């Protein structure tokens, strides 16, 4: 059976993709899972892989062409399989995606399949044993729907074509088929079950193995309890999440929420976060502030940190050898991670009807790339040593610039740091990346005259600005976070305390 090659959603936000390069030629044998093409998404260049075995029969998208997610860009099938109907569908999809980049006209013309002029009552959905056994149609025959032997008494061709694309076939083709082929053409290949003629592309979620199997009741209960099925282990057949799993998870959650209230930071294993229902005052704050200033009512807190000790530390470490070198950014990231673990209220997502406070710190790191900006994530940054953060940050930044990041590497941040210090920016305000509720903008480290003990001296200083979503974070909350951050950065030894 033929398999569609479609433009897949390779990132959560991807709506269309540009086909950079085909990795297989028409006629190449391909195996399921083998890369077929490189596609540029909104974030990165990624590979589209085959979802079935066979021969890459058609490439429906040209290199450089942009196609919306879900559009057919190719067909995998047997060497003699009729892919006419599928190809016709692709033509339609191409048409709708805007003409400039559409495939070669010859391909489109060949792709049009022919609509029977009069559908037979006998044909719908009933597989015809004869039809399956006849000689395979040759390549050019394959493009045309033909007479169903079951319906030889009928005047038109037989198969009820469910493919709307074929309605658009040209009248010329129809005439040819009706006149020239009626009654003796090779029967069209049909799926044995009378179902759709092609393998359905599994949904995005199923492909990624993301969608947990669950009973309808379990889904309803989870949604009522505000639980995420991703965090529930299924005990039914094939891991199906059923009622008792939800109940068990709810009990565990309640227990750990009780425990989490007293402990500070990541306590129980399942308590990656805690959802806090909105109090009336929080709701009012949210409502009023949105009216005042856009959908995210942001305010900004700026602080200037003394970097004397941080700089000392850097040079001391640098003297110990290249492998101990850390950047200002590494120090900031580590300090932010620690500060967030002490101020989880800043490490939170705004979810519309509740605030999700995370007990784990997944630190997003804004990286400039030629095409714009991307924020790879250092997961569990609070639990990582500075050296680990340093290595990971460098590696992620490099792969971001090479556009090799996987979606799971740039989603899931609980808080983001944006550093433009290396560009000599003194201070700036960064824009919150929802649903996160804060972002820290880091400026450059510069020597400045400051008053210390009544005397003007030159000191290394760095300005940071915290953008806060006021629905989640109040002025004092953000200020306390910055206070902690100041203490850590101005006294880096505190980080090992």
């Amino acid at each position, binding site marked *: 059976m033929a398999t569609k090659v479609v433009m897949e959603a390779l990132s959560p936000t991807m709506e269309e993709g540009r086909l950079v390069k085909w990795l297989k030629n028409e006629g190449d044998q391909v195996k399921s899972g083998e890369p077929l093409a490189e596609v540029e998404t909104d974030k990165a260049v990624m590979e589209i892989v085959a979802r079935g075995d066979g021969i890459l029969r058609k490439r429906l998208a040209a290199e450089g062409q942009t196609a919306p997610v879900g559009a057919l860009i190719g067909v995998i099938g047997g060497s003699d399989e009729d892919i006419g109907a599928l190809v016709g569908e692709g033509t339609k999809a191409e048409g709708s995606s805007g003409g400039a980049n559409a495939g070669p006209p010859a391909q489109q013309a060949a792709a049009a399949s022919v609509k029977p002029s009069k559908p037979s009552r006998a044909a719908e959905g009933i597989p015809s044993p004869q039809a399956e056994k006849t000689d395979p149609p040759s390549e050019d025959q394959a493009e045309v729907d033909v007479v169903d032997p079951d319906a030889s008494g009928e005047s038109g061709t037989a198969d009820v074509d469910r493919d709307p694309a074929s309605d658009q076939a040209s009248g010329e083709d129809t005439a040819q088929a009706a006149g020239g082929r009626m009654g003796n053409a090779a029967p069209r290949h049909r799926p044995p079950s009378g179902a759709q003629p092609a393998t359905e592309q599994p949904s995005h979620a199923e492909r990624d193995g993301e969608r947990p199997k669950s009973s*309808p009741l379990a889904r*309803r209960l989870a949604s009522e309890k505000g639980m995420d099925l991703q965090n529930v282990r299924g005990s039914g057949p094939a891991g199906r999440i059923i009622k*008792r799993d939800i109940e068990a998870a709810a009990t565990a959650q309640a227990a750990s929420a009780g425990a989490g209230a007293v402990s500070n930071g990541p306590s129980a294993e399942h308590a990656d976060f805690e959802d806090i229902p909105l109090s009336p005052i929080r709701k009012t704050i949210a409502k009023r502030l949105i009216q005042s200033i856009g959908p995210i009512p942001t305010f900004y807190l700026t602080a200037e940190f003394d970097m004397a000790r941080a700089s000392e530390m850097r040079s001391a470490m640098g003297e110990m050898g290249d492998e101990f070198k850390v950047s200002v950014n590494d120090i900031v990231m580590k300090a932010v991670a620690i500060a967030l673990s002490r101020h989880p209220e800043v490490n939170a997502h705004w979810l519309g009807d509740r605030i999700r406070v995370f007990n784990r710190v997944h630190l997003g790191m804004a990286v400039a790339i030629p095409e714009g900006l991307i924020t790879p994530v250092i997961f569990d940054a609070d639990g990582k040593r500075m050296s680990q953060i340093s290595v990971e940050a460098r590696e992620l930044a490099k792969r971001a610039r090479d556009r090799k990041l996987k979606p799971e590497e740039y989603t899931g941040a609980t808080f983001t740091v944006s550093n433009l210090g290396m560009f000599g920016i003194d201070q700036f305000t960064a824009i919150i990346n929802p649903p996160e509720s804060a972002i820290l903008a880091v400026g450059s480290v510069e020597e400045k005259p400051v008053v210390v003990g009544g005397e003007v001296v030159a000191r290394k200083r760095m300005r940071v600005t915290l953008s806060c979503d006021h629905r989640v974070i109040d002025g004092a909350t953000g200020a306390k976070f910055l206070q902690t951050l100041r203490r850590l950065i101005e006294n880096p030894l505190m980080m090992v305390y």
Partner: protein
Amino acid sequence: MPVITYRDALNQALREEMQRDDRVFLMGEEVGVYQGAYKVSKGLLQEFGEMRVVDTPITELGFAGVGVGAAMVGLRPIVEFMTWNFALLALDQVVNAAAKMLYMSGGQYPMPMVFRGPNGAALQLSAQHSQAWESWLAHIPGLKVLAPGTPYDAKGLLKSAIRDDNPVVFLEGEMLYNTKGEVPEEDYLVPIGKAELKREGEHCTIVSHGKMVLVAMQVADQLAKEGITIDVVDLRTIRPMDVDTVVTSVRKTNRAVVVEEGWEFCGVGAQVADYIQRECFDDLDAPVLRVHQADVPMPYAKAIEKAAKPDVRKTIDAVKRVMYLES
């Protein structure tokens, strides 16, 4: 309250309705002199005479047609088939005449008649005489299809059927005739189109009708020992089906097993499962499972016949599967 057999409950219903309304009469093979092949009509010939208790030749299509004609001219016939397996020969009258008469005559000819007789398998009657026809008959718009599983329901439903102005198919059971239950002496009716929650539980719903209600009750008894409690819904009327009772129960238990005597394909259970998936989708914790006869003509050999029939063990297995329990 007196405890009587299903057979006697039917006999009481016939007698009471014939006493109540002299347009009611019974016809069929051996209903008179022989007192009924299963003695359901015992004593009726003596009480009502041969104008109202009519022995017919062995011509199912013929006497079913006579019944339709009698109904057209204002009588209220009860046509007894010695078994529904023989009624196959009469289906043209049941399906094409009785079921459609009111509709096709533009409302001029109501069909106040009852077709009744034993349905389903007994013991070693083999392939041709062990069939359950309810899904065939319930398929037909214009027919009401009743399948009582207890003496109480048998009497109350038969009386309702005789008083109904539409053609009613009444499915009894050879293996049911000797079962006993409490039946009040006073006049009562069981409404058509109303299921009954025969047993209340919380873990699983079993939907069944006719003879299989007894299986469902035994299953409920056995599982109760394991701490599993069952809602047993007895449909009593297959068409029009009391979907509300089924849905209310499944919404409570979140799972259902449908048990029927007939074959799986296009069976009554398929219809029940369809209503459940439509009405209870978000309440289901497991797929609806069905227990039914094996997809073969009923075997004659005793052991194989037993293996082919739906039973308590198969039903318990199904209940445990929808509960995700080891079984």
